[in-house]
């Protein structure tokens, strides 16, 4: 290993190669604290060429490697296989090109999501995917996880905004995928790599689509007696053909936590749920949409406030965005779950999720992207308490099974990583996983790039969904 370390130091320089235990400690986990492993080294390359040489050095020494951005991932994706090398892209953080005319930007993978929109603001454009972690997470991580955010309801996820990539393949070759025009010849390799969870190579440059800042934005806060009526209102709004920019629900348990914290947004703590609706677009249309949404909310028993200014708008969003922080203060660890169900199933599933949390004696609350049916049950816990940790894991599995039974899936935006790999057979049969392996092996036949992710460890021995087998499978 020391030979590899010497080779890595020679490539990136001694100050950009971390090998001491105290330096490696912070790299043992990502945002999901329950899965950890110690890397053998962390390198911080400065450019594509260094990435390629690091990859080739790892190959020569038979050591696996894993790309990493800011480490905010919530599925264990950026954690090294034991003794693997972490290639952290944070030093590659330049915005290389901005074209307002062509509505695109070219960035390095270490650019922080929120910084990109700031950098392009003068063009009247912005980068639409906005994960709640956008002040920290990087574009490289966003590409790998196909990240979403509150505004994906209208604008789509990362995959809808990536035009082209430069990447270092797992054998060290540098290639360019896609096209600035968005229509490259051959297979849609960009489409395959976005959401590839860092297992298909290391992305070193990203060309993204930019979209115009809407002419007008209005934000409404609906205060509902209970979460079921909030969900019904969401159903009524989406069914009506309205496409709000965001439709987010915060449940009573979260409101209590937020209001008891420094993030307090002045929400009534007796509310059963609040719904944040953001509408954007041409001014003429938005004004009428606000009225329509207000009526839907009122007819489902809500009190409705419309933000009068930016300060008030920020206050509404604080209820949503402060949730993680507020929950994080209640216990040392926070488990942020992620699953998706058809929207119509939300009321029923939420009830069951809360029941599961109670049954396992856990502090569980929900903030979620209601318009997409994307649930985020949050559980605060203390991982040093082995019994509590076991209950967190068991409850998580039950929640996922419940969502799958309702026609849903086990991740809407955080990815599979190590966290959910063993649950993949809940949704996919042997042939389906094998098809994914074919893609994986086309890029990385020896599975040296971010091994131990996405695929179940003991393939196909986890009890699989009987519905997920054979030709007579019911449609998902």
């Amino acid at each position, binding site marked *: 290993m020391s030979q590899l370390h010497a080779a890595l130091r020679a490539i990136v320089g001694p100050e950009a190669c971390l090998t001491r235990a105290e330096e490696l400690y912070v790299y043992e986990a990502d945002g999901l604290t329950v899965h950890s492993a110690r890397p053998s080294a962390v390198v911080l390359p400065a450019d594509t060429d260094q990435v390629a040489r690091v990859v080739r050095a790892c190959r020569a020494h038979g050591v696996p490697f894993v790309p990493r951005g800011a480490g905010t991932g919530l599925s264990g994706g950026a954690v090294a296989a034991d003794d693997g090398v972490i290639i952290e892209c944070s030093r590659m953080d330049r915005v290389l090109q901005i074209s307002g005319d062509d509505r695109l930007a070219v960035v390095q993978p270490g650019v922080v999501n929120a910084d990109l929109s700031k950098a392009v603001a003068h063009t009247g454009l912005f980068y639409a995917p906005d994960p709640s972690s956008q002040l920290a997470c990087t574009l490289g991580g966003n590409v790998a996880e196909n990240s979403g955010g509150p505004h994906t309801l209208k604008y789509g996820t990362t995959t809808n905004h990536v035009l082209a990539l430069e990447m270092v393949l797992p054998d060290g070759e540098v290639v360019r995928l896609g096209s600035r025009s968005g229509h490259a*010849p051959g*297979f849609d390799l960009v489409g395959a790599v976005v959401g590839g969870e860092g297992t298909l190579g290391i992305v070193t440059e990203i060309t993204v689509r930019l979209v115009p800042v809407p002419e007008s934005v209005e934000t409404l806060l609906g205060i509902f007696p209970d979460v079921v009526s909030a969900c019904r209102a969401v159903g009524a709004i989406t069914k009506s053909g309205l496409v709000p920019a965001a439709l987010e629900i915060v449940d009573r348990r979260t409101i209590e936590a937020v209001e008891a914290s420094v993030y307090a947004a002045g929400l009534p703590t007796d509310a059963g749920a609040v719904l944040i609706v953001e509408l954007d677009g041409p001014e003429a*249309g938005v004004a009428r949409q606000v009225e329509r949404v207000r009526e839907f909310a009122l007819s489902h028993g809500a009190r409705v406030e419309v933000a009068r200014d930016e300060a008030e708008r920020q206050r509404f969003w604080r209820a949503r965005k402060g949730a993680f922080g507020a929950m994080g203060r209640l216990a040392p660890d926070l488990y942020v779950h992620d699953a*998706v169900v058809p929207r119509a199933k939300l009321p029923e599933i939420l009830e069951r999720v809360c029941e599961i949390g109670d049954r396992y004696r856990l502090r569980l609350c929900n903030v979620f992207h209601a318009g997409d049916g994307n649930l985020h049950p949050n559980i605060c816990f203390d991982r040093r308490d082995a019994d509590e940790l076991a209950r967190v894991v068991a409850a998580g599995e039950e929640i996922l099974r419940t969502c799958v039974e309702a026609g849903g899936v086990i991740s809407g935006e955080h990815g599979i990583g190590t966290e959910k790999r063993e649950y993949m057979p809940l949704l*996919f*049969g042997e042939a389906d996983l094998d098809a994914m392996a074919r893609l994986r092996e086309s890029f990385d036949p020896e599975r040296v790039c971010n091994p131990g992710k996405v695929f179940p460890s003991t393939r196909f021995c986890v009890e699989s969904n009987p519905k997920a087998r054979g030709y007579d499978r019911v449609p*998902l």
Partner: protein
Amino acid sequence: MNEAVRDARAGGTVSDPPGAVAEDGLEVAESLRPTDAAALADQVGDAAAAGRALLVHGAGTRFETGNPALRADVRLDTRGLSGIDELDADEGVVRAWAGTPLAELREKAVASGHELPFDPPGEGTLGGTLASAAAGLRFANVRDAVLGLDVVLGSGEATRSGGRVVKNVTGYDLAKLHVGAFGSLGVITAAWIRLRPAPEAVRVFEGPAPDARASLAAARLATARAAAIHDGRLIVELAGDAPSVEADRERLPVREETAAERVDALRDVQGGRAVLRVRVTGVASGLPAAAACLEGAGGVTLSLPAQGLLYAAFDDSDPKALGAALEAAGRAAGLAGGELRIERAPLAVRRAHDVFGDPGPLRGIHRALKQRFDPAGILNPGRFAGRL
């Protein structure tokens, strides 16, 4: 269970691809039209075992696009797998079989208060639209509407990826790989599609095309669903809520109101039966020069500035003229900052040029994917990019 249907070759209808196959100089003896996915998987599996090459097609409306097939033993027609499996109007999603005619899907989508997110030229099938990622005037990115896909791989396995929900990162996004792969990695058997809410108001306006900048600005209006420049005219379709459409109408540089069919008619240029038809993609700022280049070479063009798409048709079949047109098309792609695709051309041209454009340094990955998804090389051999 396998229903082998002898090829009817009925009266040269558009739904009949043999013309294209005959042009490829190949005789296809047998035609299969399985009526369920299990039968289709069996047939693909049998073909793989026997090394029989399959030409996969739906209604055949896009069959003209592709390199000449290297081998073709059996025609595999997906139209036996037809119909809507489930339409969830509340959620705005539909699952349908690959052979379902787009017309049928469109009708059901509209009846449920939605619209279909595809409008390619010609009346094809769902499977063919996905396999060819067939852009229309309004919707250029077919891939974005696909939520889940059932695919029989070249090795005969029936596989599934994605699902019915609108947001999903559970496993790799394999649908992306099959959409636009022209059936070279697998045969699409069914799909979950996200419908779009039907717009409240749709209005179409046209007039003499203003300069490039003004045309682009019009094409980028918030409610501009389709915008095309053709024959010196700018045609814009506004769609959305009534007040927004009304507001955008005020901003349009063209004022003559016309019928929605005007937009549909443009698809005849986009998918017309010229001797040579090419598609040039590019960035917005590069398209005008590319269009001028194509017109200078005698091409009839259709430009979709907001989509970065440019089509040109050439009608002179003289080999010298064809050569000049192709040369201009290559230059146009350079000017546009994008790529050239030959969508329709005589056999000699398709023999001489990879119609999709060569994958270049990505040839290795293309080959690796082909080998793993279609190890016996029986799916549309030779037809896709890189002549895979």
